[in-house]
């Protein structure tokens, strides 16, 4: 049987999600046996081919060139899946979507005139149709493996869409929000990280983005009850999934 061909592409990102692929460790060999890894920007020195059965895309669209690139990737791929917060939600670079680009450039770069970017950083889904998305900053290697093996056997991947709280409770971690009054994005955030921060007694940062239909306003009100300024409460969401949290909040039913 011919192996399916995988391409792993990168747009604007830190390469951390590609590293998560490498972090499959031993399973990486199994992956290479089951699939033909034809293009892997971070790990292989190969030129892109014409067609792919599966394209994994890391990174958000932040330049004119990337806008064309993602359309090209889509045209060459039978199945396109975004991996990670940048590709799925715009990433930390989407902070500029709510700010002044020129101001950001001036603050960050010594020669801002050399920087040629779009005024916004947007998820892949705003440019092309995507078949599946994996959240996380970075994506979880296990979820990646689960998704790829599910594609292989033809089933829906077993990636939970419930809240991080569920993972906390499954792992027996007492709630930091209730027992310490620490702000935690867990109740509105997707599970997927294995409750990493709460297991160290910290509130959730929202690496895995808003869960579907998250009731963000209700949680913000709760933070205000805990004597947190509204501005600071909203700021909690302004990280790698800022675009997704803010959009979910705007689209929320009232």
């Amino acid at each position: 049987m011919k192996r399916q061909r995988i391409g792993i592409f990168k747009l604007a990102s830190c390469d951390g999600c590609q590293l998560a692929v490498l972090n499959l460790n031993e399973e990486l060999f199994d992956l290479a046996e089951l699939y033909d890894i034809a293009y892997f920007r971070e790990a292989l020195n190969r030129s892109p081919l014409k067609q792919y059965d599966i394209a994994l895309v890391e990174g958000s669209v932040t330049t004119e060139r990337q806008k064309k690139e993602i359309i090209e990737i889509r045209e060459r791929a039978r199945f396109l899946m975004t991996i990670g917060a940048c590709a799925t939600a715009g990433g930390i670079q989407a902070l500029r979507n709510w700010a002044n680009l020129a101001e950001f450039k001036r603050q960050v770069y010594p020669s801002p005139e050399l920087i040629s970017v779009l005024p916004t950083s947007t998820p892949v889904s705003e440019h092309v149709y995507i078949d599946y998305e994996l959240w996380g900053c970075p994506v979880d290697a296990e979820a990646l493996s689960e998704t790829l093996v599910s594609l292989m056997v033809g089933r829906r991947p077993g990636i939970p869409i419930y809240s991080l709280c569920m993972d906390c409770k499954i792992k027996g971690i007492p709630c930091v929000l209730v027992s310490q009054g620490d702000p935690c994005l867990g109740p509105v955030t997707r599970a997927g990280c294995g409750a990493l921060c709460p297991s160290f007694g910290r509130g959730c940062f929202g690496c895995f983005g808003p869960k579907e239909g998250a009731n963000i306003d209700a949680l913000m009100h709760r933070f205000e009850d805990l004597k947190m300024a509204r501005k600071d409460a909203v700021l909690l969401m302004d990280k790698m999934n800022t675009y997704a949290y803010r959009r979910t909040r705007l689209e929320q039913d009232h």
Partner: protein
Amino acid sequence: MKRVKIIKEDLKTIFEALAQRYRTIGPKLVHGTVVMAESSFEDIPAGYEDRQGPGSYRLEKKETEEIFSFSPGADSFKKYLCPSSVTSFSFQKSAKGFVVDVPEREGMPLAFIGSRACDLAALSLLDQVFLDGPVRDQGYEGRRKSIFIVSVNCNHPSENCFCDAMGTGPYAKEGFDLCITEIRNWLLVEAGSVEGEKVLEILPHREIDAGDLDEKRIVIARCREMIKKSMKTEDLPGVIYRNLEHPRWTEIAGKDLECGNCTMVCPTCFCNSSYDVLSLRTVSSNLRDFSGVRRRTWDSCFSKNFARVHGGNFRPSRRARYRHWMTHKLAYWIEQFGSPGCVGCGRCITWCPVGIDITHELEELRRVR
């Protein structure tokens, strides 16, 4: 059944005696919270008192000689009977055929130490679900049998306790091997089974008199007075069925985070999902050989996926999901098993990040608008 009077040090003896034959599970401090865990006598958070409110829990060390100074904590014994994640079986498919292997239950039986009356009531509800129904759950049955239970009558109900209203507490009536009532500087221990009596035999003998039993009654009466929360159970399930379109459901949905915390901490919520775990390791490229395990993990009716079936989702809104949870607890459960699925422990109120209070919501539903 036998009753004796013991002092604190004897409690340690009980712990140690049980530890010979059981894995002792009892209250323990983790991240400033009382949880149930494998523990010894020294682990009991003696002298700690909790203040609970809707969506709030704080623990404080007090100047007291009391041992059981705290009320029910963040979790319950449920996690030992219906583990949060458990392998049901493993499977292997090859040219030789398809083999299913059910893992043997290993290890010593469990002793639950410090279970409250509400915990016992929850246990009996879980028994009804998993043992008395048309299908016996073998995994549950295996874990449940030979469990030794040391219950404790409550001295310090939390602000969210309403066991009295649900008729489940505050003192244990049955379902224990030993039951402890803490009275000033001594403990009254009552046996509830032959196994329990055997444990009492190893203790220095101090018979009790009628005065000691009066003291127990006083402790219970004082505890009852301290319980401030209540739930009006009359007209259940009717009041809910008549109000399925009450505007209150929409209001709750506005506040509800549907994070699932209430269902996770509830000692009777038992819903789970099963899933086959395969890995890149165990699948061959021609798919002729594969192996994996079936894993059963806690799930919640607050998860959007929970009611997704082929063709759609039959509880598509937050309103529908909250209504389902409360209706299951306070209405369907009564029809199916003869009593509500709520034991009045108050955990869902304390551990709800936004403090939704089931007793308050039932009151709201009773209000005609």
